[in-house]
Each structure stands twice: as structure tokens, then as C-alpha cells.
């Protein structure tokens, strides 16, 4: 028995459409973003964090060294910028590991 256009049918259609869309992957469920955002293993996340910290420290040290050479303030800038660089490294790792807020502009 077919009753075209009845309320029941409409609901059934919506359900079937939803099921079909899900099956085709059109209604993508929000994917849990792992740390680092690339779904990689823990080891590579650890490696990334390490590189990130060392890079921050290295850039800080180079800037401090260059400023010292320029301003002839030998240890002052280096010691200051090594601290800043370490902080920058920690900030980098922090940004890497905290989940990004949902982007509404996509």
C-alpha cells in the first residue's frame, strides 16, 4: 500500500537520504584531530615537539649572539635571548599540542 506524500513517508525519505549521504561520506562527522593535526604516531609527535623547542632556542641564541656582536654587549643579549628562545620553543609546542578552535570561516 503506497500513500504518496504522507507525513510518515516524508520522515522515511529524510531518514533514507541521511543514511545514503552518510554511506557516501557526504555528511562527514567531525574528525577528532590528534596532537599535531596530522594523525601521526606518538613518536613523530615527540620528535616534532623536540625539533620545535630546539629550533626556538637556536633562533633565540643566534639573535642574541648577533645583537651582542652589533652592540658590543657581550653576554647580556645572548643570555636574554636564549631565555626568550626557550620560551618561544615552549610556546611553539604549546600551540602544536592544544587543539585548534573550530574555524568558522571555512
Amino acid at each position, binding site marked *: 500500500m503506497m500513500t504518496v506524500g504522507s507525513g510518515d513517508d516524508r520522515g522515511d525519505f529524510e531518514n533514507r537520504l541521511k543514511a545514503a549521504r552518510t554511506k557516501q561520506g557526504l555528511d562527514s562527522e567531525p574528525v577528532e584531530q590528534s596532537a599535531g*593535526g*596530522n594523525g*601521526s604516531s606518538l613518536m*613523530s609527535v615527540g*620528535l*616534532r615537539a623536540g*625539533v*620545535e623547542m*630546539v*629550533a*626556538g632556542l*637556536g*633562533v*633565540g641564541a643566534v*639573535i642574541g649572539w648577533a645583537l651582542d656582536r652589533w652592540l658590543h654587549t657581550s653576554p647580556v643579549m645572548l643570555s636574554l*635571548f636564549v631565555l*626568550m*628562545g626557550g*620560551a*618561544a*620553543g615552549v*610556546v*611553539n609546542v604549546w600551540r602544536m599540542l592544544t587543539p585548534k578552535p573550530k*574555524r568558522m*570561516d*571555512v
Partner: protein
Amino acid sequence: MAAAEPSIDALGQFKLDTALGALGASVNFTNSNFMMLVAGGLILALLYFGMRPKAIIPGRLQALAEIAYDGIYSMCHEQIGHEGRAYFPFIFTLFFFVMFGNLLGLLPFTFTYTSHIAVTFGLALIVIVVATVVALRIHGWKFFTYFFPEGAPKALAPIIIPVEVISYLSRPISLSIRLCANMVAGHVMFEVFASFIVMMAASSMLGHFGIVAAIGPMALNVILMGFELLVAFLQAYVFAILTCIYLHDAVHLH
């Protein structure tokens, strides 16, 4: 008598040499440059021959080319947003240049150009310069507010601004070191285990047992090859997605 004891020369494989005989030597055309040309040629060939059938139901090669195009396109769109389409050619080129460099390096008698920090740092420098230029073009002087988050207490500016600037400048360094270190580590492990095979088989102390024992490092190298194939793809993907994230920051600030 036996030849000199086999020893492990793990870093010899990264030595630059000239390619293409005397012509290459006269213009300093290195094996690294040669592999870059090969990679570029292969990428063009994949896209050209892959898309030539223009079939509605794609064959294998066409499917590969379409997945490659579509995958990077959606990555640009998801990570950067609507404006991301403008940077699609850039990301696509970067991803495939890095991935083919990684993959070609796994073949015997080839050279892995992505194992040199000069190459990866050059790429990372291009990325960061492009991102900065994009940010400056879109936002002008407002770009510099990027280094001081809104709502932070003014008294903290002398600390926050240098930290943010260093954090920004350390991006190309971590980007390049990550790719280079991964490639070097993988190839060094290959070399070390491969040396173990020869050393065990040739060992006079182990005798015939050495040949049986050499199966161990051999099996490890087989497993390692599978792992390195994954790393080759993953590192190219990470490089591309981080480029997208930096461009997102450049386009949207924060």
C-alpha cells in the same frame, strides 16, 4: 687474503657528486640536481599520462592523478579556507616535489635530495617568505599585530613580542630540520643494518653461522623499507599541511 674489514660508512651516501659525466662536472651539475629533474619529470609525466585518457571512469593512473589533485585541493580548502584555492598550485608543487624526493631516494643507486638541509631549508625559506609576503599584501601594517595578541596586558609587551617574533622565525628551521632529520635517520638506519648483513656474513668468528644470523638484519631492513615508505609520504604531507597552516595564519591573522 681477505679485503679490508668491512666498516660502516653511514654518511657516505649523502655525499654530493657531479652527474652526467664531463658536461655535468664542468657546470657543477650534482646528482642532487639530477634527481630533482627526474622527480619533476616524473610528476609531470604522472599528471600528463594519467589525465590523457580523460575517462569518466578513471583507470589506475588516472585515479592516482585525480586523487592527488583532489587530496591537495581539499587540504588547501580545509586548512586555509575559501582563499586557499589561490595557493593550491604552490602547495601541490611543494608536496609532490618533497614526496618524490623522499620516494625516489628509497630506490637503489639514487640520491635523496630531501636529506640535505640546504634543500629543505631552501624550501622552508620559500614557504615562510611567501607566507609573510601574502600577509603583508593582505593586511599591510596590521600584520605586525600578529606578534602581540589582542587583550594581553601592555606591560608584558617586552616579553611577548620577542617571544612571538622568535617563534615566527623558528618556523622555517623546525620545518626544514624535521624533513631533513627524518630522511637522514631513515637512510642511516638502512646503511647500518645493511652493513650488519655483510659484516655478519663475512665474519670469521661466526663462521657459517654468520650467514644464517645475517637474516636478522636483512629482515629488519625489509620492515624498515615499509616504514620508510610511510615516512616518505607522511613527511611530505606534514610539510604541505604546515605550509597550509602558515598560509592560513597569513591570510586570517591568528
